[in-house]
C-alpha cells in the first residue's frame, strides 16, 4: 500500500517537474514545497543506494606523500573572530577542551594532550568540496570511535552533532554558528577521525585548529572545523533550523556522499 502511494507521488511529481521545465520558469516553481519534496526523494535514494554499496567499512582511497596538494585551499571560515576562541588560540589551545556529552554514560572534557594520548590514525585522503574542487592532505588524529567508546553511548543514540567555534553567518540570534552531524555508521567508520594534525604538523587555524572532523566518504562541508563540543543525540531536529548542519539548513543535502 505504501509503495503504491509513493509511486503515485513520484509520478505526479515527475509530471509537475516536467511542466516546470517546459515553462522555463523553474526558478519560482523550484521554491515550491511540492516540487522540492519530490526532488528531495533523490537524496534518500542516493543515500540508501550508497549505503548498500558501502559494505564492510569500504575505505576512501588513501594516497602517498607524493600525491599531496602543493597548496591545500582553506575554505569557509579562515579564522573564527569569536573572542573566546581568539583567547584560546593565543594560549596555544592549552585551555581548550572538547566536551563530549548528550546520550553518553560518561560525559568527557578532553584536552589536546588527552586526545594525543589516545590511539591515533594518519591518512592521506582527497577532500572534495561541494563546489567541485579537490585537494589532497594528510590528516592525523584520534578515531571518533575511540572517543565514543570512552564516553559510552546510551540507548537511543543515533547521531553525533559537532558544535564549532566559528559563526559563519553573522546573525543577531547566533543562528549562523557552524555545526554538523553524522550518523553512527559514519561515526564508527575507521577513517572517521578527529584530526589535530595536518601534513605532519599541528592543524593550522585556517584548517580548523585545534581539532576538526574528517569523514572521508562525504563532501567538504561535513568536515567541521574548530570543534568545541560533540553532542550525542537521538535527533538533530532541535538544532537551529533542524536539518543537521549549517549548510544543510541552507538547502544542501544532509547525506553528502555525492
Amino acid at each position, binding site marked *: 500500500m505504501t509503495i503504491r502511494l509513493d509511486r503515485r507521488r513520484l509520478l505526479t511529481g*515527475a509530471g509537475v517537474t516536467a511542466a516546470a521545465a517546459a515553462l522555463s520558469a523553474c526558478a519560482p516553481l*523550484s521554491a515550491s514545497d511540492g516540487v522540492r519534496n519530490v526532488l528531495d526523494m533523490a537524496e534518500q535514494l542516493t543515500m540508501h543506494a550508497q549505503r548498500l554499496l558501502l559494505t564492510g567499512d569500504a575505505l*576512501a582511497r588513501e594516497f602517498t606523500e607524493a600525491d599531496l596538494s602543493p597548496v591545500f585551499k582553506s575554505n569557509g571560515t579562515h579564522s573564527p573572530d569569536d573572542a573566546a576562541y581568539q583567547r584560546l588560540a593565543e594560549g596555544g589551545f592549552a585551555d581548550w577542551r572538547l566536551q563530549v556529552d548528550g546520550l553518553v554514560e560518561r560525559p568527557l572534557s578532553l584536552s589536546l594532550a588527552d586526545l594525543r594520548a589516545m590511539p591515533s590514525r594518519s591518512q592521506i585522503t582527497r577532500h572534495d568540496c*561541494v*563546489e567541485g*574542487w579537490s585537494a589532497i592532505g594528510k590528516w592525523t588524529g584520534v578515531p571518533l570511535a575511540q572517543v565514543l567508546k570512552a564516553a559510552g553511548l546510551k540507548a537511543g543514540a543515533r547521531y553525533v552533532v559537532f558544535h564549532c567555534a566559528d559563526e559563519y553567518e553573522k546573525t543577531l540570534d547566533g543562528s549562523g554558528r557552524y555545526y554538523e552531524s553524522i550518523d553512527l555508521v559514519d561515526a564508527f567508520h575507521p577513517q572517521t577521525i578527529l584530526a589535530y594534525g595536518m601534513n605532519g604538523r599541528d592543524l593550522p587555524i585556517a584548517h580548523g585548529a585545534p581539532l576538526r572532523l574528517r569523514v572521508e566518504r562525504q563532501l567538504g562541508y561535513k568536515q567541521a572545523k574548530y570543534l568545541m563540543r560533540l553532542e550525542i543525540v537521538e535527533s538533530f531536529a532541535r538544532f537551529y533550523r533542524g536539518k543537521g548542519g549549517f549548510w544543510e539548513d541552507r538547502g544542501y543535502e544532509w547525506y553528502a556522499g555525492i
Partner: protein
Amino acid sequence: MDGIDRSAAGRAAPTRRVLVRRHSGTVRVTHWVNVLCFGILLMSGLQIFNAHPELYWGQYGADADWSFLALEAKRGDDGAIEGVTRIGALEIPTTGVLGASAVNGEIRPRGFPNWATLPGFRDLAEGRRWHFFFAWLFVINGFAYLLYGLIAGHFRRDLAPSRDQLAPRHLWHEIVTHARLRFPKGEEARRYNALQKLAYCGVAFLLLPVMVLTGLTMSPGMDAALPWLVDLFGGRQSARSLHFIAATLLVLFVVIHLAMVFASGLFNNLRSMITGRYAIETEEPKP
C-alpha cells in the same frame, strides 16, 4: 487503407507515400524522457559548474593548481568587469556570455549566463537537487532502453550498421549527400543511414555511459564503494573534466541532430517520434 497517405496514393506518379512503423513505443517514450532529463541535467549541470568554473586534470585541483580551462572575470583598465574564457594560456574575451554576464542588468562574475542555468539565479544547492533527481530518472530510463534494445533486438536490427553501409565507398557517398542535405529515399529510407547509426551508437553506448560513470566518480561515496572508477578516469578532477567534455559533445550532437531533423522533414520526423509512423516514398505495388 491503413498506413497509406490518400493524397499521394491518388496521384498517377509511379511512387507512393507509405507510412511505415518507424519507432517502437519504448523507443519513443525513452527518447522523450531523455529529452527532458538531458535539458534539466545540462542546465542544472551548468549551475553546478558555475560554483567553480575551472577544469583540472588528475586526482586534485583547486585555486592554486593549474587548470586547462577557466571562465574568469577580470577588471578592465576602465574598472569594468570583463569576462574571459581561458583555454590553457589562450585568453578569449567573452564578456556578456562566459566569465561575466548580466545579473539584474549589471555585469557580474558568472561562469555561464543566467539564461543557461537552472535555477537562473545562483544557487548551487538547488542546482544539485535538480541534477541528482533527474540523474536518477535518466539512469532508470537508460537502463529501460538498454534492456529493451537488447531483448527486442532493436540494437541488432536498427542500430548496428550493416556490412554494405560500412563500406568506405558507401560512407563517403553518405557524407557527400548529407553535406548537400539530400537524404535517402524509397526503400533505403526504411532503415537508418550509416551516419545516423554511428552517431546514435556513439551517443547511446559511449557518451551517455561516460556521463554516468564520470558523474559517479565525482562522488566520494561511490569512489569508496567502487575504487576502480577513479582509476578508470585517472582521478576525480579528470573525471570532472571528462564529464564537462562529454556534455559538450552531447550538446554538439543535439545541435546536429536537430538540424538534421529540420532538414530531412520536421513534420515527418516529429510524427514518427510521437506516433511511430514515418512516411517514405516507395515504388512498391500497393500491398
